[in-house]
């Protein structure tokens, strides 16, 4: 039996026996890895929008170098500007979900909550949103009316005002019914000292509830799988939870990220890289609704990679993590919040999973679209 916590080395070879050639190859890989990714693709593919490695290459290889501002380099969910001492968070997001309506929500609610949550994850109280609608010729007015009502309802629930907007109509066939873009401004909270690069070994990793529900609800509502389930999207504003965590943990709350595209796995990987730390996640402790687990099993997808719209991961220094968790569990929608792992030192930039079966593996970023497997 392999000793716990000790990983296998190359069979039959002690570490000292690593050949010169292998060392050289490992060196080449290290160098290639450490380089900033370069955007070399000839065309944009769906993978560039899936939230995994290709998205990262697009952002870090093209957008950040071309536009580079200090705040953009942070790669946070929101950008931060300071005007005469007042800290503001700014964020923008576009919504192109298909179908427009699905169990638990619709494109209008997502458009509000998505931007509100990007502000909240930066430790900012959402104040105001802008709203742009891109409508396809032929969209039934009833659908538009329903979505505008959904937007109004979600904004009211989240306590934000929609203060400006724009509408465009494009020819039939150029937008899938409607696309919605929102931008938001939030006021940075004085209690917040959040940063993607502030994670310390020993910090506890908290997930705010059961994962994978939004992505599963969308996939099943497309009707391609002939599976039925009661799973509904988890879309909701995360500011109330952020507010409570800031009160309970203050500066011990190091960082938060909502686990949208690419799921919890991609969020953890991005932060491990940004802070130069490792993470260990106990798979058995990650809450997954049995229906999500069942659908994921049948489709060959790991729930850790499925999108959420109302769940986040938070990193809290160990001395305040229990209080933070207890407070979080009292917030509506976070009753199942739980600690799922810990920040470690080695190997930097990597997320390890202790499987429920007792093994260990690396949990990488999502590569490509989350595609079902056939074998």
């Amino acid at each position, binding site marked *: 039996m392999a000793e716990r916590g000790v990983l296998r080395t190359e*069979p039959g070879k002690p570490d000292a026996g690593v050949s010169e050639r292998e060392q050289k190859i490992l060196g080449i890989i290290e160098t290639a890895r450490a380089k900033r990714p370069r955007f070399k693709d000839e065309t*944009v*593919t769906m993978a560039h929008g899936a939230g995994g490695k290709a998205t990262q290459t697009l952002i870090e290889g093209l957008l950040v170098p071309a536009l580079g501002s200090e705040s953009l380099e942070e790669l946070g969910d929101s950008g931060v500007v300071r005007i005469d001492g007042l800290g503001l968070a700014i964020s923008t997001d576009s919504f192109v979900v298909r179908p427009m309506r699905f169990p638990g929500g619709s494109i209008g609610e997502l458009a509000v909550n998505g931007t509100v949550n990007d502000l909240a994850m930066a430790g900012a109280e959402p104040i105001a949103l802008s709203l742009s609608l891109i409508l396809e010729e032929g969209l039934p007015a009833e659908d538009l009316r329903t979505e505008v009502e959904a937007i109004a309802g979600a904004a009211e629930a989240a306590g934000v005002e929609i203060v400006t907007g724009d509408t465009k109509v494009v020819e039939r066939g150029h937008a899938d019914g409607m696309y919605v873009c929102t931008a938001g401004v939030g006021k940075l909270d004085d209690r917040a000292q959040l940063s993607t690069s502030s994670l310390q070994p020993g910090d506890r990793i908290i997930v705010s509830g059961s994962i994978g529900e939004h992505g599963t609800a969308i996939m099943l509502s497309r009707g391609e799988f002939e599976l039925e389930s009661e799973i509904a999207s988890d879309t909701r504003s995360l500011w109330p939870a952020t507010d409570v965590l800031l009160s309970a943990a203050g500066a011990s709350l190091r960082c938060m990220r909502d686990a949208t595209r690419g799921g919890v796995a991609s969020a953890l990987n991005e932060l491990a890289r940004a802070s130069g730390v490792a993470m*260990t996640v106990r798979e058995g402790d990650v809450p997954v609704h049995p229906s999500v687990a069942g659908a994921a*099993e049948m489709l060959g997808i*790991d729930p850790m990679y499925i999108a959420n719209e109302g769940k986040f991961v938070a990193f809290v220094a160990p001395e305040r993590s229990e209080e933070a968790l207890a407070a979080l569990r009292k917030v509506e929608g976070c009753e199942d919040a739980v600690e799922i792992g810990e920040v470690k*030192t080695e190997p930097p930039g990597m997320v390890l999973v202790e499987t429920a079966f007792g093994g260990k593996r690396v949990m990488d970023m999502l590569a490509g679209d989350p595609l079902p497997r056939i074998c």
Partner: protein
Amino acid sequence: MSMRYVDEYRDAEIGQALAGKILGSIEPGRHYKVMEVCGGHTHSIYKYGIDDLLPENVELVHGPGCPVCVMPMGRIDDGIAMANEEGVIFTCFGDMMRVPGSKKTFTDARAEGADIRMVYSPLDALRIAKQNPDRDVVFFAIGFETTAPSTALTLKRAKAEGVGNFFCMCNHVTIVPPLRALLDSPDLRLDGFIGPGHVSTVVGARPFEFIPADYGKPIVVSGFEPLDILQSIHMILTQLAEARAEVENQYSRVVPYEGNVAALKVMAEVFELRPHFEWRGLGFISQSALKLSDAYADLDAERRYEVPGVRVADPKACQCGEVLKGVIKPWECKVFGTACTPEHAIGTCMVSPEGACAAYYNYGRFAREKEVV
């Protein structure tokens, strides 16, 4: 829906107990190499961290059993040529989308304008054909004997219903010829095989009898849950310890020894063997793939469309074959980490994220970290 029944095959305590039994069944100082033939096993081993539960001297070697990764570049190029034909809706499984042809993947071709759609079963493709009677719908069929029966049944249905715009580009492969090709190589360094459970539900366990009979190696047909795999490894090691070489069936709850006779019958009706077929990384293997029989010629996409049909040679420097046979380590391949990387994969072992080379590229350094702090 309830998936509860699988939990009992994932019990960590039983896993630890099995790991202990495995430790007890090995000879100290002997190094064991066991190949899991099927990509599904590779996936489970990775997902549950099964490697991590094995003693250092029991090594798992990933086999050629991923039907996606073994598709040669020329076949992908031909598929893209069909997809680019005027009016064609091209359908394939999602796994296929990222596999590189000589110049591009199906994902790239779709981004450039081809109408390529992911489907979850051949019946989905047939449904698309019925919904679009004025367009040709091509299904890019892949897989071992596991998925071949569902392609065969779909083709039968298309014929029976007179769907005139549904065509199949058949890339189905068979499991025994590549295993024999591996076993025939003089430099093979494998001690035993974890047999492919899903394929065996169709072909049964009998076709693997040649492995112990002709080559003296044990094979255990295995299920896909972590306890299945650990138990199969234990059964293989036990055979080795007792100097036995037999076909054993760990997955008897699903696999009948004689296979699924009805499925084999429909396959025989719809398909016939190709004289030879190219495998990425392994080269040409005779009688290792299926094509549509003459009775189904009018549904055969390869007979309907002019395609390049050009064989695109694997780069000479690619040594996937040796990696698969366990002769060399990934890093000993001449192009590993330089010309061949996960972003620009050349060989089958780098194409699949779970392939031996991709795994080593991504995690090799990590595997050497002695202590995980």
